[in-house]
Every structure is written in C-alpha cells, then in structure tokens.
C-alpha cells in the first residue's frame, strides 16, 4: 500500500468487485458480509491512515463514475452559464453508500480509541467536497455528493428516535453539514439546504432525545442566515439568492407549524443574523408561540393583557444572550451600573461602545455592532423584569403599583429605563433604529419580556421630546405590520395600544398626516388591527 498509484488501482479493483456483487440479482447478505470480512483481512478497516485513504479513494471513484454525460441543453457553449442537463447514473454512488450502510449495520468496529465509522467517513467526505469545490469552482457538480448523503441519511437515521445510536448518527450528520455550510462551500448551498431540511434529518434531530438536537439545528439555521445576510441586507435578490431565500421561508414555515417552540427558544440568536430589512422572515420567527398556548385576539375590546396568566411567565431563551456583552467586556460594567447607577461611567460613552471599528463596519454594512445592541437591550430588560418580579414577590401591595401609572414602574426600573432613554437621546437615526428594532424583536407571544418591552417602547414614545423619536418608534412598529403575515402577537397589541390609548395622543402627531398616502396607510393598518 505504500505506493499511492498502485494503492488506487487496487482499491479500484476492490470497488469494481463490490459493484458486481451489488449488481448481481441473487447475491445477498452472505456475499456482502464475506466481502467486508475480506476488507478487514486486508487491514483496510483498522481506523488508521490506510482506512482514511481507502474511503477517500472509494468516494472519489464513486463520484467520478457517477457523472456519465453532461449535455448542454441551452444554446451557447459551456462558457455561458447555461443550465446543463446532467445525465447521471448513480449506480456507483448507490453501491458505495450501500457498502457504508452495511458496515454500519454489521457493526464494523475500527478498533479501540479509533472513534466510530460514520464520523470518520463523513469527515473524509466533507474534505473531498471542499477540495472538489475549491478546485472546480463554477464547474463543481454537487449532485453525486447530494445522492451519497441522501442514501446515507435515509438508511442510517432509523425510525426509533429514542435510541442513543440514532442521536449519534444525527449529530454526526449535523456536524458534517456545519462543516459544509454555505459560507464554506457556496457551490453546495442548495444541496445543503435540501439535506438539512430533509424529512430523514430535520424532524428527527428536533424530535429525538428530548430536544438535545436543538442546539445543533440552531447552529445550522444560523449558518444559513449568515450566508444570506449580505445579500438580503441590501435586498439585492438575484434569482439564485431569491430561490435560496424562498427555500428558507418554506423551511421556516415547516418549523413554525411543527416545531414552534424551537423558533421561540432561539429567536434571539436568529435575530442577530437576520438583517433588519428582512422583516417578513424575521416576523415568521417572532410569530412562533408554544403550541399549548391560546393567544387572545389582539383586537378584543378592553383586552386586559396584564391579567393573562402567561404574561408574567419568562420565555425560555436558549440563545446566549450575554455572549456579545461578555465578548466586549461590558457585562460587568452593566451589572455594576444596574446595581449602583451613581458613579458609574457606563452611560457616558455607551453609544461609542456600540459602534463597530470602521473596517468591520464595511463588512457588516452598518456602523453599529447589532448583536451587541441586541445583547445589551435584552440583558438589561431581563434584569429589569427579574427586579420587578423580585419586588412584586416581596410586597404584594406592589402588584397594584405594577398597574398604577408608569411613574411608579419607572421608579422601580429607573436604572434600566435610563439605559434605553440615554441611547434614544444620544444615538443618531441609524443607531436609534437598531435600538428600537432590538426592543421590537421581543414583542412576541404573551410572556413577561413581551409585556416589559411593550411597556418600554410605549413609555419611550410617551416620554420622547423629539418628534423624530416618536416617528421612528411608529416606523419600527408599522414596517413590521404592513408586510404580509404572519405578525407577532406582541407587536399587534403594542401598536393597538399606541393608536387607541389617549395617553399617547397618537393621532394628534403631525407625522400621521404628513402625506395623504401616509394617512391612508395608518387608517388601513388601524382598521386591520380592528
């Protein structure tokens, strides 16, 4: 085996033998297991470097023999990006994947501390795909690799979801897909999304082992959003990115319908990587609510939000809310400020801290560190809500105070609110927009974050001394309401409160009548909100 060329030739002979066995109408399990025993006797399945080279060569052989002919069906030569119609025979890929699944089913053991077979084979396959894509670039053909993964997924992800082995299989694929994410292999993006959302993978990973697969899928969805972000941010949707975007929406709708709690629990990290302009896609995520929850119709007259049982329950947030704050070493300073505002310098240069260095601003397409703003707003909000609940628990009387005029609330959460007020006053239009977005992203199903942030955004509207602030708050809410459905429940009840409650004298604001179409727009949205 020392000589690479003869090694390749020998593996080619072995592979050809295997294909003949697969092709034979009556050969079955005994022939298969005999062949695998022979491989073991050749020392090819010891989990060492030879094993790697063996599977590497097999994979390349299987893929190479897959593409039989590439017919150019559109006029013009290969140079133009015409839709090549590939006539592909998958016999070689199917034979190879059959060999892998049989090894898995026969429990081929690579020996002590050699890890298990599947992760090894998947890592070899991911390396080949990355290398092939790098070398071939626009000529890279994803389909044989797609076929290989579909075969392995369909065979190896058993129906029994509670079996630990099944979870290992699914996470091995999840790790492989993370390595092959679109940012790393963009020419594989469509095949990637097909596989990640495949019914042999996505539902199984989300259903198995009491949600242990959720962080893996959250990471994959984040990989997809990160890839699309630069193109969605400027809404420059050529056909390819538009197809990927629509495909993403379809996957999100399946998640919204079948796994809403997953979207609920990870909304925070998804909002970090979905650009602010992507309002409808973000609304799909923010509209998710636990299946056992019944949402009262937001347009119910005199709806008493405060009396809803769920409104005082904290939502489950599985994302790392504090991560961005910690990364900027700001969490300690924020904690100290919330405990003892006097003497803290947090607010003096807070806006500066939220800006990106110029070089990063170019890449990010904004001067602000959006994940840091999101982290700061939600972290401060969580502290305030906990403080409120703490006070409430201590003095039952304060329960009434909660519903008294905002002054009393403000007193209890003055420090937290001061952070929002400081930013609203000191930030420029772009910064304020991102701040208000971070708040509006918490207006979801009935929970105590929705309640708190709804109160905060209305309070900021009432306390604003500049028209531009009230206009921007209105814009942030309105742009989320005028897009096609779905619309998050918390957003609807906040906007209804804004336009109905005389305390905000909304209709007296000049910007509601600044142009006939704007006036009509407000009226139509007000009507649709009942």
């Amino acid at each position: 085996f020392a000589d690479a060329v003869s090694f390749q030739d020998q593996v080619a002979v072995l592979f050809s033998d295997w294909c003949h066995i697969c092709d034979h109408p009556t050969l079955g399990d005994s022939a298969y297991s005999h062949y695998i025993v022979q491989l073991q006797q050749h020392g090819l399945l010891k989990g060492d470097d030879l094993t790697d080279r063996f599977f590497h060569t097999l994979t390349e052989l299987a893929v190479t023999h897959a593409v039989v002919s590439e017919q150019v069906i559109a006029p013009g030569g290969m140079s133009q990006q015409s839709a090549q119609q590939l006539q592909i025979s998958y016999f070689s890929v199917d034979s190879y994947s059959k060999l892998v699944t049989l090894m898995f089913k026969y429990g081929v053991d690579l020996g002590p501390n050699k890890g298990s077979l599947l992760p090894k084979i998947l890592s070899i396959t991911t390396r080949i795909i990355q290398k092939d894509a790098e070398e071939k670039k626009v000529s890279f053909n994803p389909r044989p690799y797609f076929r290989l993964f579909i075969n392995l997924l369909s065979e190896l992800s058993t129906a029994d979801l509670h079996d630990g082995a099944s979870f290992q299989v699914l996470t091995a694929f999840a790790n492989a897909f993370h390595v092959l994410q679109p940012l790393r292999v963009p020419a594989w993006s469509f095949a990637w999304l097909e596989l990640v959302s495949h019914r042999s993978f996505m539902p199984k990973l989300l259903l198995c082992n009491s949600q242990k697969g959720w962080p893996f899928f959250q990471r994959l969805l984040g990989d997809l959003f990160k890839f699309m972000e630069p193109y969605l941010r400027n809404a420059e949707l050529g056909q390819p990115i538009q197809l990927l975007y629509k495909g993403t929406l379809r996957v999100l709708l399946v998640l919204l319908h079948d796994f809403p709690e997953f979207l609920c629990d990870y909304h925070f990290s998804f909002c970090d990587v979905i650009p602010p302009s992507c309002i409808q896609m973000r609304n799909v995520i923010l509209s998710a609510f636990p299946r056992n929850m019944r949402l009262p119709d937001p347009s119910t007259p005199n709806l008493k939000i405060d009396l809803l049982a769920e409104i005082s329950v904290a939502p489950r947030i599985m994302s790392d809310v504090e991560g961005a704050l910690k990364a900027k070493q700001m969490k300690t300073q924020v904690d100290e400020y919330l405990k003892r505002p006097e003497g803290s310098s947090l607010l003096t240069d807070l806006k500066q801290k939220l800006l990106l260095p110029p070089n990063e601003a170019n890449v990010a397409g904004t001067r602000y560190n959006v994940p840091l703003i999101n982290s700061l707003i939600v972290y401060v909000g969580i502290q305030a809500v906990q403080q409120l609940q703490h006070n409430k628990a201590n003095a039952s009387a304060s329960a009434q105070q909660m519903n008294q005029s905002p002054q009393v609330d403000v007193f209890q959460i003055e420090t937290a609110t001061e952070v929002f007020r400081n930013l609203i006053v000191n930030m420029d239009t772009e910064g304020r927009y991102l701040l208000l977005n971070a708040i509006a992203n918490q207006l979801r199903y009935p929970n105590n974050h929705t309640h708190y942030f709804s109160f905060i955004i209305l309070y900021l509207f009432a306390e604003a001394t500049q028209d531009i602030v009230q206009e921007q708050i209105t814009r942030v809410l309105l742009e989320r309401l005028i897009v096609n459905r779905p619309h998050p429940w918390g957003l609807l009840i906040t906007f209804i409160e804004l336009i109905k409650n005389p305390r905000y004298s909304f209709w007296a604001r000049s910007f509601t009548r600044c142009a006939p179409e704007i006036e009509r727009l407000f009226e139509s949205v007000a009507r649709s909100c009942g």
Partner: protein
Amino acid sequence: DFGAIGDNLSGASVVSGHDHLYNLQMLEAAYHRLPQPKDSERAKTYIPRHPSVTPASYPQIQAPIVTNPAFWERLGSDTLSTDMLFFAFYYQQNSYQQYLAAKELKKQSWRFHRKYNTWFQRHVEPQVTTDEYERGSYVYFDFHLADDGNGWCQRIKNDFTFEYNFLE
C-alpha cells in the same frame, strides 16, 4: 447542554475564506445544478417474502397505488374491502401496507386485542364499561384457518370482556 454550541451566531463569519462576490458566483453555478427529484428517489426495492417465479405477464413489482394512503382510506366497510384490510394486516407484516390497513381498520371502529392478536368491533353498545374493561357482544375477525377449512371470517362473540390493557 442546551446552550448555544460552537461559534456564537453573531459577529462576522470567520468560516468563509471568500468574499461575497465569489460566494454569489458559486451560488449562481449551483443554481444551474440544483438537486433533481430523481436524485433523492431511491429505487424501491420490493423484496417478496417468498419469491417465486411467475409468468412474465404477471405484474413483477408492486402497483404504486398500494403505497398511496388515499387508496386505503377509500376501502369501504363492506366485507370484501374489510377482508383486504385484514389480508394486508396479517399477510404483509412489517410493511407500510400493514400500517395503512391498521389505520383504516381503527377508523372503521375495529380495535386490536394484543393478547388474541385479533381485531374486535362492538356488535352492540357494551353492557358494562369500567376504567379497566368493557363487556358485551363483539364481532371479531377470525384469521385462523380452522381444521375444517373454516376460519378467515367474521364471527360474533357474546359476553366477551375486552380488558383495556390488551388494547393496542
């Protein structure tokens, strides 16, 4: 172990060695090589339980319609249709057809008794119903081939107690 794993989602992606334009070009190329439906279709290997050679004029593979749930839902509750359901249930075990047949039998108010491996249907409302069981007259499908060649028919069992812990 529920926390976010691996790299935090926020922040500039550190994974890509390429710029946006390159990625868009590669995506464009991928757009012309989308996976096709046939790339996922796996040859349906129907392995007959007891393969035997039949004249070539006989169908050699399953008719696709038997894997279509709508076909099973349309089977009525007349004897012939019900017998088809029982045939699929008892003679195509561990197959999608058995699953669909069981689903349809249940919809037609048959209940599977785990101890007797037999489907029962209430002939009249049960005389006694408790949390543990119900007792009354039931029709049941006798799939045994009795030595007098009978069997494979529906019989009535009076005063039968159906214990719920045998209900599948």
